[in-house]
C-alpha cells in the first residue's frame, strides 16, 4: 500500500504527454509542444546532468543515474540522434572512453521543457 501522494504521482507519471500539453494552455498536439524526447526520465536525467557539467563520461552518467549500460546507451543514442547531445569516443590508454556534452539545441530544448513545466503549474493554479 502506498501513500495517496505516491499513488497520485504514479498515476500522473503514466499520463500521456497530450494531456500535459493540453493543460499547459498551449497546443493539444504534444509533438509540437511538450518535448517527449526529454520527457522520459532517463533522458531528462542525462540532459539535466549535462546542463550542469561541460562533459560527463558514460561511466559518470551510469553511476549518477543508477542505470544499466544498455539502458543508458539506448537513451543516449536517442538524444544523440536528435542532436541534443554530442558524443566523443576516445581511448584512455587501451580502454575506450565515451564522453557526452550537451549541444546548443539540447540546451534550448531543456529550457523549452522547463518553460513548459512552469506554464503547466501556472495553468493548473489558475483553474
Amino acid at each position, binding site marked *: 500500500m502506498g501513500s495517496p501522494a505516491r499513488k497520485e504521482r504514479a498515476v500522473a507519471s503514466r499520463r500521456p504527454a497530450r494531456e500535459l500539453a493540453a493543460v499547459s494552455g498551449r497546443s493539444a498536439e504534444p509533438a509540437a509542444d511538450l518535448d517527449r524526447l526529454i520527457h522520459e526520465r532517463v533522458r531528462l536525467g542525462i540532459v539535466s546532468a549535462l546542463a550542469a557539467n561541460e562533459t560527463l563520461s558514460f561511466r*559518470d552518467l551510469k553511476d549518477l543515474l543508477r542505470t544499466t549500460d544498455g539502458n543508458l546507451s539506448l537513451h543516449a543514442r536517442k538524444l544523440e540522434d536528435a542532436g541534443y547531445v554530442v558524443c566523443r569516443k576516445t581511448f584512455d590508454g587501451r580502454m575506450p572512453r565515451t564522453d557526452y556534452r550537451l549541444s546548443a539545441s539540447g540546451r534550448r530544448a531543456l529550457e523549452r521543457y522547463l518553460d513548459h513545466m512552469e506554464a503547466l503549474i501556472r495553468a493548473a493554479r489558475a483553474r
Partner: protein
Amino acid sequence: MPSSAPHPAPEPPIPALRTVAIDDLRYIRETMERSAAFTAVPGWATVAVGVTALGAAAWAARQPSLAAWVAVWLAEAALAVTLGAAGMVAKARRAGGPAFGGPARRFALSFSIPLFAGAALTLAYLRAGQGGWMPGTWLLLYGAAMLAGGAFSVRTVPVMSACFALLGALTLFLPRAWGDALLAAGFGGLHLVFGWIIARRHGG
C-alpha cells in the same frame, strides 16, 4: 434509449498533472545538483593528500611529546583541507560549474559536523593525556565525515569512507604503538589508492 451524443472528454485531473510538473522540475534540479557534487571529487588532490599524510606519519613518529605529535597531525589536516579545497575548485572550474555552489556548501556542512566532533574529542584526549585513542577516533570520524559529505558522490567515495570507518574502528582495538602506522595506512594509503581510482575513472 440512451443518447448517442458524444460525451465531452473528461478533464484531466489538475492536481495530478501539477504534481508531474513539480516532480519533473524537482528531478531536474536534484540531478543537476547531484551531478555537480558527483564530479567535484578531486582525484589527484586526494593522491596529494595521501603523499603528505605519509610524510606526516613519518615526522609525527619522531616527536618527543604528545603535544608535538598532535601539532604535526593538525598541520597535516590543515594542509589536506587546503589541497582538497583547491582540487575541488580546480575541478569545478574545468567542468564549467560554480566552485562554491549548493552541492559544495552542503558537502562542506555535512563534512564539518563529524570533523567538529573529532576536534572536540582531540582536545579532551589531549587534556586527559590519552593520545592513544586519537588515531582510531580520527580515522573513524573522517570516514563518517566523508560518508556524510560524499553520499551522492561517485561510488568510490562512499566505499573509501567505509574503509576509513572500518580501519578506525579496528584501530581502537589494536596496540597504541601502531597508531602512526595505522594513520599512514589510512590517511596515506587509502587516499593514494582511492584518489588514483577517482582520477582515472572520473577525470582529475
